[in-house]
C-alpha cells in the first residue's frame, strides 16, 4: 500500500502538467479540426463541418509530395545522419586517444556551441556559408571537388541536403553528448574482460558498447523522429518552403494554412493527421524495435 502511494506521489506532479499542457490543447485542437474556424473569427467560433477538412487534406494533390518531404528528407535522412554522426562523435570523444591528448573538455564545450545557437542564427549563417561566394564553395573549389560554385539553396537538387545540414549542425550535439554520457557509464571491467578473452576493438564495440548504448540510441532515435517530423523553423527560415513548393513540409503547411490563409480549423486537421502518422509510427517502432530493449527492463 505504501509503495502504491509512493508511486502515485512520484508520478502525479509530472502528469498533472502533462494533462494541462498536452491533453487539453490536443483535445481542443481535435474539436477545432471539425470546424471551419478562422483566425479572424476566434471570438465567434467556427461552424461544424465534420470530416470536410480531413477529406480536403487527403484529396489535395500536394499531400503526397508534402508527406514525402516530411518523412524522407526532413525525418529519415536527418535522423539517420544525426544518429550516425552523434555516435561517431561520442565514441571519438570517449576514446583513449583523445583522453591522452586532453582534448575531451574542449571537445565537449565545442559541442555546446552549435546546440546553443538559436535556429534563426544557424540558418542565416549557413545560408551565408553555402552561398556561391561563401566559405564552403571556396573550400570545395580549392580542393578541386567542384569546378563551379553551387548555389546550394537555389538549386532544386541540393536544397534539401542544405537544409538537412543546418538541422544536423544545430542538433547533433544533443545526440553526441547524450551518447557520450551513456558511454561513460559502461563499466571498464567489461572491456578488460573482453580483452582477456582476446577481443579486438571492433568486437568490443559491437558486443559490449553497442548493446549498452542501444536503449539510449533507440530513445534518441524515436524522439528525434518525432521532433524532426513536426519541425517548422528550419525549412521556414531557410527556404520559406520554396523554391515554388519544393521544400514544403507538413509543419510549414500548417503555418501557411493557419496564419496566411487564416484557416485554423483546417490547419488543426493537418496537425491531427501529423500526430496520427507519428502515433502509428511510434506504435510500430515500440512493438518491433524497442520492445525487447526498453519494455523488458521496465
Amino acid at each position, binding site marked *: 500500500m505504501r509503495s502504491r502511494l509512493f508511486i502515485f506521489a512520484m508520478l502525479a506532479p509530472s502528469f498533472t502538467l502533462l494533462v494541462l499542457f498536452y491533453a487539453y490543447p490536443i483535445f481542443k485542437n481535435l474539436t477545432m479540426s471539425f470546424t471551419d474556424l478562422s483566425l479572424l473569427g*476566434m*471570438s465567434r467560433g467556427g461552424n461544424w463541418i465534420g470530416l470536410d477538412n480531413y477529406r480536403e487534406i487527403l484529396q489535395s494533390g500536394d499531400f503526397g509530395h508534402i508527406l514525402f518531404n516530411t518523412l524522407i528528407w526532413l525525418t529519415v535522412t536527418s535522423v539517420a545522419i544525426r544518429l550516425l554522426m552523434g555516435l561517431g562523435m561520442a565514441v571519438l570523444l570517449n576514446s583513449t586517444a583523445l583522453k591522452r591528448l586532453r582534448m575531451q573538455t574542449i571537445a565537449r564545450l565545442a559541442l555546446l556551441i552549435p546546440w546553443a545557437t538559436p535556429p534563426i542564427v544557424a540558418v542565416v549563417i549557413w*545560408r551565408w556559408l553555402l552561398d556561391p561566394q561563401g566559405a564552403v564553395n571556396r573550400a570545395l573549389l580549392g580542393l578541386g571537388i567542384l569546378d563551379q560554385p553551387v*548555389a546550394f539553396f537555389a538549386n532544386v537538387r541540393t536544397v534539401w541536403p542544405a537544409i538537412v545540414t543546418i538541422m544536423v549542425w544545430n542538433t547533433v550535439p544533443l545526440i553526441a553528448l547524450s551518447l557520450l554520457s551513456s558511454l561513460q557509464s559502461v563499466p571498464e571491467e567489461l572491456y578488460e574482460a573482453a580483452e582477456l578473452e582476446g577481443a579486438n576493438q571492433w568486437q568490443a564495440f559491437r558486443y559490449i558498447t553497442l548493446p549498452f548504448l542501444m536503449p539510449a540510441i533507440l530513445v534518441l532515435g524515436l524522439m528525434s523522429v518525432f521532433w524532426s517530423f513536426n519541425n517548422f523553423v528550419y525549412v521556414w527560415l531557410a527556404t520559406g518552403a*520554396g*523554391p*515554388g513548393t519544393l521544400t514544403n513540409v507538413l509543419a510549414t503547411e500548417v503555418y*501557411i494554412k493557419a496564419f*496566411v490563409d487564416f484557416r485554423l480549423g483546417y490547419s488543426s486537421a493537418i496537425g491531427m493527421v501529423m500526430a496520427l502518422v507519428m502515433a502509428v509510427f511510434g506504435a510500430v517502432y515500440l512493438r518491433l524495435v524497442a520492445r525487447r530493449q526498453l519494455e523488458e527492463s521496465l
Partner: protein
Amino acid sequence: MFRSSRKVLILLAASMTMSGAAMAQSTTITFRFNDTEAEIRGAIDEFQRQNPDIKVDLQRIGWRDARNQFLREAAVGQGPDVVHSAQVWVKEMGDAGATLALDSLLQQSPPPNQFTDFVAQDLAKNSAGKIFGLPWTTDTWAMVYRSDLLKEAGIATLPQTWTELRQASAEIFKKTGKAGFGFPAGSSASGAIWFLATSYWWSNGKALIVAKNDGAYDLGLTAEDIAECMKYFKSFVDAGDNPKANLAASDAHDPSILQALVTGNQAIGSMPPNTYKQVLEAYATANPGKPLPFVSGPFPKGSVTRSSNIGGRMLVINAHTKYPEAAWKFVKYMSSEEVFSKFYRTQFPAQRSLLKKVDFGPELKGFAEQLEYARSWGAYASGPIPIGSLWNLAGRGFGMVLSGQRSPDEAAKELLQEVRKLMPQKS
C-alpha cells in the same frame, strides 16, 4: 472635541482632494510599435510631456508575428491599447472585431488635416465602410542603380520601360560581368516577387483582382497575362544577369543582394526606402569619404503607366481598450506634423499635405517620383480573398517558373485555378 473633529474634517477634505488629483493623474496606455524604439522614443517622450496625465508604455513585436499575436490577444480581450499595424491588416482586424471603430472619435476630435488628407483611406475601412485605422506612414518601392556600373556599361539614361530594363540588365552583365537586375527570386509566403509582378501588371492597366460595377469581384488577369509576366522575369534568371543564387533570396533586404549592391557586384535593384538607406549607410561605412555611386528611379512604364503599390502602416485602437479617449489623443498626436518633422524621421507621413513638405534628398528622388504613381491595393484588399493568400500563391507560382520546375504557361494556369478556388462560390 469640536476642534479635533474639525481637524479630522480638514484632513478628510485634504485627502479627498489629493486622491481626486491622483485619480485625475495618470492613465497608462500601452503602445505596440514594431520597429526600433530609437525611432519613436522622442515622440513618445514629447507626448508624455505635453500630456502629463497619460503615460505610454512601449511594447514591441517583430512584424512577422505582429498580426497573429494581436488577433489572439484581442480574441480574449487583451492586448495593447494602440497597435502599429500594416495597412492591409486593418480591414481584416476591423471585421474580426479586434479594433475600435474610429468614426465617432474622428468626428468629435478630428486630426488637424482632416481625414480626407490621409492616403490609403480605402484600406482603413472595413467591409461596412466604417473606419478602423488611421494611416500613419507610407512608402513605396522604387528602382535603385549603381551609377558607376551604368556608366561602365555605357548606359546613359535610366531605363524607362520594362523592355529597356531588360536590355540594360543584359548590357551590364555582358559588358561588366556583374549582375544586372538582381531581384529576389525566392518563394517564401511574403516574398518580394509579388511587388514586382504587381507593378508589372498594374503598369499595363491590369490587376489580379478587380471590382466589377455590380460590387462583385473577379479575376482581372488571364493566363496569358500571368505567363507573360512570368516569362519576363524568368528571362533575367535564365540569361544569368540575375544570378541563380537569388532563387534562395525572398526579401528585397536579403543580405546577399544588399552586399552585391554595396560591393559593386550588382547594378540594379528594387526595394523600399529603408532598405535603400541601409545600403547607402553600409557603403558609406565601408568607403568613408567617397561619394555615393547610387541613384534611384521610378518603376518602368508599362503600356499604360508606371505603378507600384503604396505601402504603409496605420495605427489602430484595441476594441477592448479601457481608455479610448487617451488612446485617440495619442494616435492623433502621432500623426501630427510635429512628430514627423522633429522626431519620427525614418518614415514618410501618410498625409498628402505633409508628404509635399518632406525633403527626400538627392538619393531618394526616385522614391519621391514613384510615390506620385503609387496606388493602394484597392480591390485586392476589399475583395473576398485575403491578400496574404494571393501573395503566397503568386510567390509560389513564380518560384516554380523561376526555378525551372514548371513552364510559365502551366504555372500561370495553375495560379489562376488556385485563386479561383479561393473566390467564394456563387450559389
